């Protein structure tokens, strides 16, 4: 998920010293909320019951790990964040938190999150969390983001791991179901981000980030959104056919994917003149719907798990 709030850096209320809220902002709380939700669903739909308190702490430490990787991202990307409208109000580019401090917070919280998840759940889940932090901070932020227009495609894996970690907390391993949840988020991320890149016009270009809109143009980006949306459909329906799915999840997947592909088709049909005329209304609507899409897909898995506990649902 992407934080699309824009910030005002010239505000007279700007504090010369970081407050507690600035350190919280360093952890990208809105991104953490998606991590909490998907990890929780991964944990709850797993076939192995987990003590509620152990489950709660596990999800909290997965979220803390995600927050830590967000802080590492802000440390490394401060130069880019300073240029982009969307990110210039973040604590590091706004001058509230020093980059070295963001690095220390990121590394410290990463260590705490991994060790505590190992103690709370199991060391496989903890190792998986460590790998996810490494993937987001090093593979995506340091390596891919500035190197290739496929940054979102491959880097999106980092955001797709949390439900697998949640599943691993309960089962101690990986299975078809957890891979299906991973693939769902993995395929969903590119159209979600590219829709954002279309209406955040100029941001990535100014920052020199090789986003698809910058390297291949907006027409190609619209085509890519359509292709990935079409590819997402079988992945989503496939997930509903696994052990975490059932009739409710399948019905939800079919309806949601039809709407998703229709939205992508609308984006593909438009050109920049049409988009500029209505201030990117279709692209913004698609972006908002993509958030609802992912949320409802995971809610449908949760619904199947609840129905199963009453002897209904599932295949």
């Amino acid at each position, binding site marked *: 998920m992407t934080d699309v709030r824009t910030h005002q850096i010239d505000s007279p209320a700007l504090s010369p010293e970081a407050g507690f*809220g600035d350190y919280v902002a360093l952890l990208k709380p809105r991104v953490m909320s998606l991590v909490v939700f998907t990890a929780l669903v991964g944990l709850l739909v797993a076939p192995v019951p987990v003590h509620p308190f152990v489950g709660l702490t596990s999800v909290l430490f997965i979220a803390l790990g995600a927050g830590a990787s967000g802080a590492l991202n802000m440390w490394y990307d401060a130069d880019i964040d300073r240029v982009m409208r969307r990110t210039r109000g973040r604590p590091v580019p706004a001058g509230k938190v020093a980059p070295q401090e963001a690095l220390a917070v990121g590394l410290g919280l990463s260590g705490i999150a991994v060790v505590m998840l190992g103690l*709370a759940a199991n060391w496989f889940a903890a190792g998986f969390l460590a790998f996810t932090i490494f993937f987001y901070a090093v593979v995506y932020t340091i390596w891919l983001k500035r190197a290739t227009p496929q940054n979102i495609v491959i880097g999106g894996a980092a955001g797709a791991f949390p439900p697998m970690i949640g599943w691993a907390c309960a089962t101690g391993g990986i299975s078809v179901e957890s891979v299906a949840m991973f693939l769902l988020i993995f395929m969903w991320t590119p159209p979600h981000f590219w829709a954002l890149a279309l209406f955040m016009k100029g941001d990535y270009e100014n920052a020199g980030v090789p986003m698809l809109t910058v390297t291949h143009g907006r027409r190609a980006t619209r085509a890519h959104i359509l292709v990935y949306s079409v590819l997402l459909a079988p992945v989503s329906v496939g997930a509903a056919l696994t052990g975490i799915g059932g009739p409710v999840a399948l019905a939800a997947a079919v309806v949601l994917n039809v709407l998703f592909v229709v939205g992508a088709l609308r984006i593909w049909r438009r050109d920049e003149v049409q988009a500029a005329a209505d201030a990117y209304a279709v692209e913004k609507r698609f972006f908002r719907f993509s958030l609802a899409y992912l949320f409802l897909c995971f809610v449908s898995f949760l619904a199947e798990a609840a129905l199963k506990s009453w002897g209904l649902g599932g295949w």
Partner: protein
Amino acid sequence: MSFRPDHELHRRRMGRNLGIGLVLVVFVGLVFGLTIAKISGGGQISGFDHSVRPELVPEETQ
């Protein structure tokens, strides 16, 4: 004897310090709750403790 007035730094950092304090209290609560949850989970929580305790050895199946 009178209390010294707070330095300006103390007032400025009050919010941050309270936040950190709250986080630490929550963390201690989590570790405590986790300990209780693990212990009440029925797992093996005692060991040999420097002397052999036959009751802890799993019975061999014939």
